């Protein structure tokens, strides 16, 4: 495992070299392609003049706020639906009717309500994150060992104690999976909204580069979004391990 980590890099590296050679040899001027070295140069330029960083901040702020909002709401609803079967049955049709709506389809409504800017983007990200978090939290509630709920009953824990001491810790590993999933969705949706409508952030950066006929910069944005997404996931995985190592470990052993 440890000795061969670089093996996974052989193919991408070869592809990059091949692309570089191909671009240099064919000498094309394309509106959608650029040589890897040009992309790297454009990326460094955009990073150093600050434009890329501002765009990253805008995108991450919207994605983060939307994730927080949608995630918390999803967590709350998931817990309510998961713990109170009657509510779940009453709301089932409603949830199933709203959930499949593609997040981008609510864009026109969000634009009407919020106009352009952060709040519109945050609202759409929140809408997209709400459902997976809700569904996974609800499933996590159902996955809690029933014996633990009986222990809570036998000890006569209050509702808040029950949630804080039994329900949340028991469901935490699965909730963390939901959060990581939702984080990835948040980034995708934020960039999508920026490309489609909102004059902000990395998505808008791609759009401007494309319309300005700068394929190197456009692709640099693309590469950068990949880096940001990867870092985000790695950060969350690391935080999860640090904060909830024990619970995650237990879950793994139990699975």
């Amino acid at each position, binding site marked *: 495992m440890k000795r061969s980590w670089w093996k996974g890099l052989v193919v991408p590296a070869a592809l990059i070299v091949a692309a570089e050679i191909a671009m240099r040899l064919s000498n094309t001027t394309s509106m959608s392609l650029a040589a890897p070295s040009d992309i790297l140069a454009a990326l460094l330029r955009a990073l150093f003049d600050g434009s890329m960083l501002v765009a990253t901040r805008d995108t991450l702020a919207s994605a983060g706020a939307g994730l927080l909002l949608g995630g918390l709401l999803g967590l709350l609803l998931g817990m309510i639906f998961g713990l109170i079967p009657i509510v779940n049955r009453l709301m089932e049709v409603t949830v199933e009717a709203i959930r499949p709506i593609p997040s981008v389809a609510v864009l026109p409504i969000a634009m009407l309500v919020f106009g352009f800017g952060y709040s519109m983007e945050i609202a759409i990200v929140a809408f997209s994150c709400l459902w997976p978090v809700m569904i996974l939290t609800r499933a996590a509630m159902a996955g809690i*060992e029933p*014996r*633990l709920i*009986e*222990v809570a*009953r*036998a*000890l*006569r*824990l209050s509702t808040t*104690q029950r949630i804080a*001491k*039994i329900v949340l*810790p*028991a469901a*935490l590993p699965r909730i963390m999976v939901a959060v990581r999933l939702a984080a990835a969705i948040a980034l995708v949706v934020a960039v999508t909204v920026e490309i489609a409508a909102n004059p902000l952030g990395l998505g808008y950066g791609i759009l401007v580069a494309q319309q300005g006929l700068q394929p190197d910069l456009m692709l640099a944005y693309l590469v950068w979004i990949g880096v940001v997404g990867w870092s985000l996931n790695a950060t969350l995985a690391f935080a999860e391990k640090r904060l909830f190592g*024990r*619970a995650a470990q*237990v879950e793994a*052993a*139990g699975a």
Partner: protein
Amino acid sequence: MNTSNDAAIVFDRVSLAYGGRPIISDLSLDVGRGEIVCIIGPSGCGKTTALRMAGGLVRPLDGTVRVLGEPLTEPRRDVAIVFQDYGKALLPWRTAAANVSLALEAAGTPRSERPERIRTLLAKVGLASHEDKYPTEMSGGMQQRIQIARCLAQDPAVLLMDEPFGALDAMTRQGLQDEMLSIVAETGATVFFVTHDLEEAVYLGDRVIGLLPNPGRIGIDLKVDLPRPRDQLETREMPEFLRLRRTLFDFIEKAEA
């Protein structure tokens, strides 16, 4: 049936059905204060169900269950339940000490008093040096000890135990049996002990009650006249022990037939 207010647990003409199928039918039974009553019976005859009713986890369809003179409608803190599946009844994300702490937190014991009580309780069940271990790092016997310590943290007047030692090896089981008896002798708690093991029932009990299946009802009620404290070797060799074991064996054989 005499249903005196003196008894710790009273089943008064209790019936229960699941999905229309009678599980317990017209069960009347008194467990005196400080008494150790062992419940045996073929698999599925309703032992666990009876115990859950005594714990307030399930309500009877008919009749009443009274604990310490009061009709039972929900679990009480002075009635502790030791579940058979200790692996599921412990919080895996909490250490041994923190698992015991849960009962104190539930009872509102001040934070400053908890460490001392937890140490005493864990020492009592022989886990003095294992406070900081997680359940998954411990053997089955040790995990069951944590659960017993957590139950003792409730200061229970009544202990309900559902095959608590059923999954343990013979040596561990005997050790825990004796530990339980000495703890109970010390606290004077009433014990309602469900087991599959006839010898265990005779060894621990002041009384052994055998249930008959379909629907669950009392088939035999034996007084155990063996001196205390009991001894794993001597008690088990006494003629009275062997006689009781024989009687119960015959009962189970007929009940299962």
